[in-house]
């Protein structure tokens, strides 16, 4: 029998038994809806972070020492001379006890130079970032991440107040907005030279951020800097370097991996409900095969082959799950749209996701339709005809 005729028959049945078909499809509808909505959350939430990096750090690469005596201020001077390098910003860091009048906590104190603000562009919640203090050797100014500020029970009105790093007093000039940053949680920022005085030992640095003149040149500069630093640190042959260079593309890759993982995780959870939906279809199809024993008998009597009965019931299961899938996609996209409004990320229809969901619901229809369809095709014509 023509597949088209079987499909038409299947549609006719679905329409004729609306309520039951609707209930049968409900599992698939909910499953696909959850799949679309959850994966859109995973992608929307991470693509926000990805966009930020694309805008910000595409020209940047960061050199980090693997020990705290690997990279030095002399390295910075050489790096700045390399072709393609635009700005170099160095940081040092150490841990110290920070105390306000109300509270005290241990935190990471990062010493940053005057280029840091250009290269990293931190978001300010209140006040300002560290001013240019290149010529002042002991400027005791400090900027706090907002989580550190709240640990110290400071608020927006605490600008210009005094806190202690160890036993030295600093003036708070700004509090950062942590929400957009990463790694800034629980940190304090002070001028580089000041840091060398109180929390770190010169000439060793903890990281160097290099901004190149354009995005395309990043891999080349990375290679050049690697050989430059290896030479300067007397590292030859197979010996492992005492620094790592990370650029934005690697960070983007890492975020991409997180995004994939999240999508797989949430998608996997949603798929379980799809499978449950499939079991629902199987259940109803088995009932339907019983109820239609007589019809199957008539069809077998007038010349339907077992394979044709199998096809008919299989197509019915597929049509059921596919129609359920289509409804699920529509509702799922609507839900995803509202979630995007709520979470303030961009809503985008993903054709791949839609096709994959429909493909998956079809697959579910086949898997869970096979057993009922086989049961139907194996009925003995004589007995099926006698069935009341």
């Amino acid at each position: 029998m023509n597949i088209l005729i079987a499909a038409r028959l299947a549609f006719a049945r679905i329409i004729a038994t609306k309520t039951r078909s609707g209930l049968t499809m409900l599992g698939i509808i909910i499953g696909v809806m959850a799949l679309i909505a959850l994966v859109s959350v995973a992608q929307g939430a991470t693509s926000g972070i990805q966009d930020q990096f694309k805008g910000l750090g595409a020209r940047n690469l960061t050199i980090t020492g693997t020990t705290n005596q690997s990279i030095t201020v002399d390295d910075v001077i050489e790096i700045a001379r390399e072709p393609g390098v635009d700005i170099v910003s160095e940081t040092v860091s150490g841990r110290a006890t920070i105390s306000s009048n109300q509270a005290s906590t241990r935190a990471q104190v990062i010493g940053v130079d005057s280029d840091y603000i250009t290269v990293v562009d931190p978001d300010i919640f209140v006040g300002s970032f560290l001013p240019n203090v290149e010529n002042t050797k002991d400027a005791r100014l400090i900027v706090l991440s907002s989580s550190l500020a709240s640990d110290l029970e400071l608020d927006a009105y605490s600008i210009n107040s005094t806190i202690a790093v160890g036993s030295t007093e600093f003036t708070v000039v700004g509090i950062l907005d942590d929400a957009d940053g990463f790694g800034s949680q629980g940190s304090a920022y002070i001028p580089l030279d000041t840091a060398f005085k109180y929390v770190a030992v010169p000439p060793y640095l903890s990281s160097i951020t290099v901004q190149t003149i354009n995005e395309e040149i990043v891999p080349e500069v990375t290679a050049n800097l690697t050989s430059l630093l290896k030479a300067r640190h007397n590292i030859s042959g197979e010996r492992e370097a005492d620094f790592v260079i990370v650029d934005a593309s690697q960070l983007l890759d890492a975020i991409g991996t997180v995004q994939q993982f999240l999508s797989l995780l949430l998608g996997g959870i949603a798929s379980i409900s799809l499978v449950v939906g499939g079991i629902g279809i199987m259940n109803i199809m088995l009932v339907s095969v019983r109820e239609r024993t007589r019809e199957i008998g008539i069809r077998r009597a007038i010349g339907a082959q077992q394979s044709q009965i199998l096809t008919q019931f299989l197509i019915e299961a597929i049509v059921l799950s596919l129609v359920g899938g289509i409804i699920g996609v529509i509702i799922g996209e609507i839900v995803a749209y509202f979630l995007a409004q709520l979470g303030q990320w961009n809503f985008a229809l993903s054709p791949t996701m839609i096709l994959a969901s429909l493909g998956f619901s079809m697959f579910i229809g086949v898997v869970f339709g096979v057993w009922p369809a086989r049961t139907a095709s194996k009925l003995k014509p004589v007995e099926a005809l006698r069935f009341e």
Partner: protein
Amino acid sequence: MAAVVEMSNVTKTYGEGSSIVKALDGVDIRIKKGEFVAIVGASGSGKSTMMNLIGCLDRPTKGVVKVAGEDLSELNDKKLTSLRNYAIGFVFQSFFLLPKTDALDNVATPLFYRGVPAKEARFRAMEMLTKLGMEDRYSHQSTELSGGQQQRVAIARALVTEPSLILADEPTGALDSKTGKQVMDLFADLNDEGKTIVLITHDLDVAKRATRRITLKDGKVINDERDKK
């Protein structure tokens, strides 16, 4: 003339051991092309069993059943199904039209299963419905048709495949006597056109319309009479 149905020493038993039932017991009959045969007998005499064998729905326990020259015992399910589709036109007591399917597609369905393209199948179905005076009912579902109309659709479905024989099981059993008579007139006309018809009935008035009556009792043929021409 070639035999459409040949039964040689056919036995059909149901069940096993002490609960064994001999539904047919050593039946020998030949039905030739163009005959109009009624199979009669009391309830439990073996009529339905006989119909299942002639209709290629079942195989004998012992003996040989040949339909359109094919030995049923030698056919697998696929070939047996195919033989039903090509050789037999079924007409059932309760019409057995397909649910959720209009009259046209009901008639066309045996052709669909045979692989005839949908358009041609529906064209032939329409021709057959027209022949039986049902052309203005082709888009009706079975629930929208009277008993007599449903049986006409069923007869159209049996005829559309141009089978070797029409096999009718109590075709008037669910109809009032007037409609029943019309259906029997239709069978008589079809027989005049040369169609082979086997009719199963326990109604002797209906059996009289046939040209040959085979009487069953306890699974055995006890009488086989032909009208003299």
